[in-house]
């Protein structure tokens, strides 16, 4: 490109034009000058994929639409800034537990897998950490137990999938059934009340006016974002999910990494178990029911490719928040759960359609414009 300097040759030739003849977009010329700076600016909005930023804009659009719907249906409530702030906090608190699970799920899906057992792991970790024996060790013991159970069950998933070569769908489906069964037998199908005030306070307390659960969600999201975007672990995750064979031939230990991904998902479930136990001040084998579906749906809405290799934490977070907002919207309008579920289904489809549509249509419009100016 840069070396397309005119060279005298024996044959008549077209005059040498600059390599990228008429510049197609202004940013492209920046690349020729200051590569690093120009490239950084370019990749943020560029329409040809790779970056999730533009998809996230679509999600924010969906969110805005939901808020507008809320404002139209309940103008009196939305006129009160105090209520709005509290409602935002309520939505975030509602999103917090599933949000934590979704971060783990996002890693697993980007890494080319799926984890159907998250809800069951949350239940098992919740039940295990609220047994009388565990509660004797106090809040520290309970937290430790929940995290350890989560990681261990995740590791079992991971070993079965990466070394036992089970299909992720099957392995985690089996784990879903088994972990719930184990939780039921440990708890004797009873609800186990948490007597630790420290644990129970997590959901009840606010710091600086914001619930602690929201801080936990924030911490997990930030940690997840850094892990995915700034560390070798995240890079390997994308490589393993995007093209396992290429990752293997580049020297990445694909199996070990796959195993670690499920352990990470298990860890997130452990954290979620503490949060949920704290919210209910108790745990039981049926808790966190169908969380796997919420988490998967949120990740997919957030632009995570179900076949692996692509996805963003921010997108997943937005997905979870969109779901929580819908639930909230229905609650303040006093509508039934059934209606809510039907709308949720519709929203999933609509969100994905909107994301696919927006930038394609923009580029198509531009292209059409160009044709008309050219002719």
């Amino acid at each position, binding site marked *: 490109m840069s070396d397309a300097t005119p060279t005298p040759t024996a044959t008549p030739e077209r005059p040498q034009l600059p390599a990228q003849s008429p510049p197609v977009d202004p940013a492209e010329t920046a690349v020729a000058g200051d590569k690093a700076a120009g490239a950084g600016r370019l990749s943020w909005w560029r329409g040809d994929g790779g970056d999730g930023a533009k998809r996230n804009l679509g999600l924010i659009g969906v969110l805005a639409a939901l808020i507008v719907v809320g404002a139209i249906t309940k103008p009196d409530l939305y006129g009160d800034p105090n209520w709005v702030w509290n409602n935002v906090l309520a939505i975030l608190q509602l999103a917090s537990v599933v949000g934590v699970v979704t971060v783990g799920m996002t890693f697993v899906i980007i890494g080319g897998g799926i984890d159907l057992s998250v809800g069951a792991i949350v239940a098992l970790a919740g039940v295990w950490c609220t047994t009388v024996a565990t509660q004797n060790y106090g809040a520290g013991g309970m937290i430790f137990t929940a995290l350890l159970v989560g990681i261990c069950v995740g590791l079992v998933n991971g070993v079965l999938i990466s070394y036992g070569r089970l299909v992720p769908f099957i392995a985690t489906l089996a784990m879903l059934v088994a972990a719930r069964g184990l939780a039921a037998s440990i708890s004797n199908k009873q609800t186990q009340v948490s007597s630790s005030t420290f644990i129970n306070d997590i959901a009840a307390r606010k710091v600086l006016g914001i619930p602690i659960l929201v801080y936990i969600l924030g911490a997990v999201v930030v940690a997840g974002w850094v892990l995915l975007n700034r560390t070798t672990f995240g890079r390997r995750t994308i490589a393993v999910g995007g093209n396992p064979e290429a990752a293997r031939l580049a020297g990445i230990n694909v199996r070990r990494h796959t195993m670690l991904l499920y352990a990470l998902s298990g860890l997130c479930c452990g954290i979620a178990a503490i949060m949920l136990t704290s919210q209910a001040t108790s745990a039981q084998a049926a808790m966190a029911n169908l969380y796997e579906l919420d988490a998967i749906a949120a990740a997919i809405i957030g632009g995570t490719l179900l076949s692996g*290799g692509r996805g963003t934490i921010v997108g997943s977070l937005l997905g979870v928040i969109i779901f929580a907002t819908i639930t909230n919207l229905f609650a303040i309008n006093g509508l039934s759960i059934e209606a809510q579920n039907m709308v949720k289904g519709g929203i999933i489809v609509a969100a994905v359609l909107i994301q696919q549509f927006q930038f394609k249509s923009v580029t198509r419009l531009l292209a059409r414009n160009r044709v008309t100016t*050219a002719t």
Partner: protein
Amino acid sequence: MALPEDDPATASAEAAAEAPLVEAPADTVAGEVVLRLTDLVKTFPGVRALDGVQLEVRAGEVHCLLGQNGAGKSTLIKVLAGVHQPDSGLVEWRGEPISFANPQAAMRAGIATIYQELDLVEDLSVAENAFLGHEYRRFGFIRRGSMARHTRQILGRLGHGEIPPGRMVRSLPAAGKQIVSMARALSHEARLIIMDEPSAVLAHDEVGNLFRIIRELTAQGIAVIYISHRLEEIREIGDRVTVLKDGRTTAANLPARDTPTRDLVSRMTGRTIEYVFPDHPTDDTAGAELLQVEGLTRTGEFADVSLTVRAGEIVGIAGLVGSGRSELLETIYGARLAEAGTVRMDGKVLRPGVGAAVRAGMGMAPEERKSQALLLGEPIYRNVTLATFGRYARLGFTDAAKERAEADRIAETLELRPRDVDRPVRTLSGGNQQKVVVGRWLLGGTKLLLLDEPTRGVDVGARAELYQVIRSLAAQGVGVLLVSSEVPEVLGLADRVLVMREGRVVREAAAGELDENTVLDLVMAGSLMEGAPA
């Protein structure tokens, strides 16, 4: 994506006024014009892939398209095949302006295409792939019998009657897949067959076969558009040549046989490139033995292979596709488990697994770029550093700035275009993707390079650069084990050559002691289907 600053129409008109298109007298070909393209323009976000292309193809001719990597050849044929829609410009097909809304429309009109990247469905049979989209049907049921019969007949015509029509495509070696996609093109009643680098995965004798078929087709008045980076092939099979540069036609309808190579290259690149191999070092500079392979065996792939590579030495392996070369390389690299034999690096036996090989300093550029090497949706720089990002990382945190800088350096040496390393690899042309695959291991820190068809699809200019880079790495003490279907490449680049046939090394000699014909004779007894599991 802002609108272009210049109106493209006036821009190209100006250019045309300043230097009229070179056009040779077209008396060499008699047939009527079947296809004419005028001022074709196609843009992708940020790239003007076609920027005023002129092309004229006549019935019964082999029209060659030449151009550097990224010049727009594949984009052009995708427009003809209905995959892409042009932004502006005129396509005239058999005298009438036409635009193909989709690939089916182009096929119905009589244009069949063999794409640069294989587009077969791996889990369907050979016959199902050949007739994909236009199966023989009766009352909605597929007529397997007649499809299989017809497929067998086409394969026979292609000189590969031994490929069973019922065989799953997944189980075929790369060259076999290429045959199937040719069979697919022939299964249509096409008036124009477009071949985008069909010879890139074919061995020498297969190319001969391909040319025989092309001659049969043109004798029936079918037109062929042929794309290749190998000028010898264009001289042998082509009638006329159209040269593209940066999405424009820089020369049209040159006689394929008599146009001097220098002219072709300068029209393609805008400069003169000496297409030669770097000099071999005059004295023996190779160091200690780096790689020692003893008695390596995998049943059905290769048997009892022993070889050594010294530091600073380039060892070439010549052999047909299916002679076990790629499998051997992958086994040395630990990607396949050896049944017998040992691999030593620096005298130490390697544990199985790619990880151990990479830690010991090996790097391999695999044969199939898409399935084995690239993360298509990821940016170029991340693909270049896929094997090394851990090395630039600190405490597990990646250093994207450093990675970009390293990738940029590689992009510059290998003439990657566009040079923007943040672009997803998917949007690169085939040859440029190949440069990314090879570039990955040129970053330094590699002691032994295993290169499997490193120049597949790479244009003349970049190829010369790549040879230089490989040679200079060797001069720095890196050992290189090179597999290539192009015998001149093996002979020109390597210091020592091993010839493989049917999974065994049949000859080992210094490169200077062998010539092309000797190697070809040694290599020939193999056949395509060997090496594939039954």
